[in-house]
């Protein structure tokens, strides 16, 4: 059984929950946990949440985007208090994972809270001293929706070999060159690695976003087996 030890607001609708999980076996970036809530009448439901942190002892961070009509995320985001127990299972997932021993360049494409498992990869990269070259392309609706904004700014400066680029779909920051728009072929082509470099590509976000980006990557010549995707859906974050 895990316990909430701290919470941090990331954006108006996203919270990072810091959990202490005794006997946590460690995890790979990209893996997730299943969080189960049980009501007093015995009704229970569960959702999968990507792990945001690099593996670090018994400490585990999840970043939860509040889905207003959701069953689980409003409870985790607003009600769960420091000291409360949390029932979780994991780490699980062995496909959408990056291993720090892999030296191939990496293209990460995030839509909204799809940044969470990709951030675990970025954090693990530095924690493990990996020299794999990373490019992160992050699509958000508005600057206020950018999760980990400060940390990404400092990592883009300090983590050698990490490039970070943004696309704003609804409202761009002041002084931004160009209009808000959906992420397109030119963004992936400009800010991702060329297919010739045989990068590992990880794409995470809402279902429509992931399918669009995966199609773009394949059209740009990336081998399907190097394009790994994770979609949010009814049981997603």
């Amino acid at each position: 059984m895990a316990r909430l030890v701290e919470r941090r607001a990331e954006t108006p609708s996203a919270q990072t929950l810091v959990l202490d999980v005794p006997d946590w076996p460690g995890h790979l970036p990209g893996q997730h946990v299943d969080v189960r809530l049980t009501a007093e009448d015995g009704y229970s439901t569960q959702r999968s949440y990507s792990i945001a942190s690099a593996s670090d002892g018994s400490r585990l961070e999840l970043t939860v985007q509040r889905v207003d009509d959701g069953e689980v995320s409003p409870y985790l985001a607003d009600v769960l208090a420091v000291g409360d127990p949390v029932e979780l299972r994991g780490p699980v997932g062995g496909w959408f994972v990056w291993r720090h021993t892999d030296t191939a360049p990496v293209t990460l494409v995030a839509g909204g809270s799809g940044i969470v498992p990709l951030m675990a990869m970025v954090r693990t990269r530095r924690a493990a001293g990996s020299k794999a070259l990373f490019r992160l392309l992050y699509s958000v609706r508005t600057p206020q929706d950018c999760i980990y904004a400060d940390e990404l700014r400092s990592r883009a400066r300090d983590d050698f070999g990490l490039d970070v680029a943004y696309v704003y779909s609804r409202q761009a920051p002041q002084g931004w060159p160009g209009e808000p728009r959906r992420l397109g072929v030119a963004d992936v082509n400009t800010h991702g690695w060329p297919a010739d470099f045989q990068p590992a590509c990880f794409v995470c976000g809402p279902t429509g976003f992931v399918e669009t980006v995966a199609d773009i990557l394949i059209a740009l010549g990336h081998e399907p087996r190097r394009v790994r995707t994770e979609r949010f859906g009814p049981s997603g974050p």
Partner: protein
Amino acid sequence: MTPFHGPYDDGDYADGNALAGPLREIFAVDLTAASGRCAHCGAEGPVALLRVYAHAPGLVARCPSCTEVVMRLVRGPNSAWLDLRGATSIRIPLGVE
């Protein structure tokens, strides 16, 4: 303990990554990285790429190519029911995790 509302969160389906926990309860290895062959159209690909519908009682995983059902998993109080009629075979990588 919890204020529950409507039956689902937003979005229509998730993907096979969401099967990792429920399948890990049954199998000793991760099955999302395993490769399955659809019994309907013959498409082959990782379990992680199946389309997973959680609206039904249990989980229904459909082929991303032909949308036919590949796998059903229903968890009861004392047992799990796994229906794999829609998969001709599943190739499980060993010694990777």
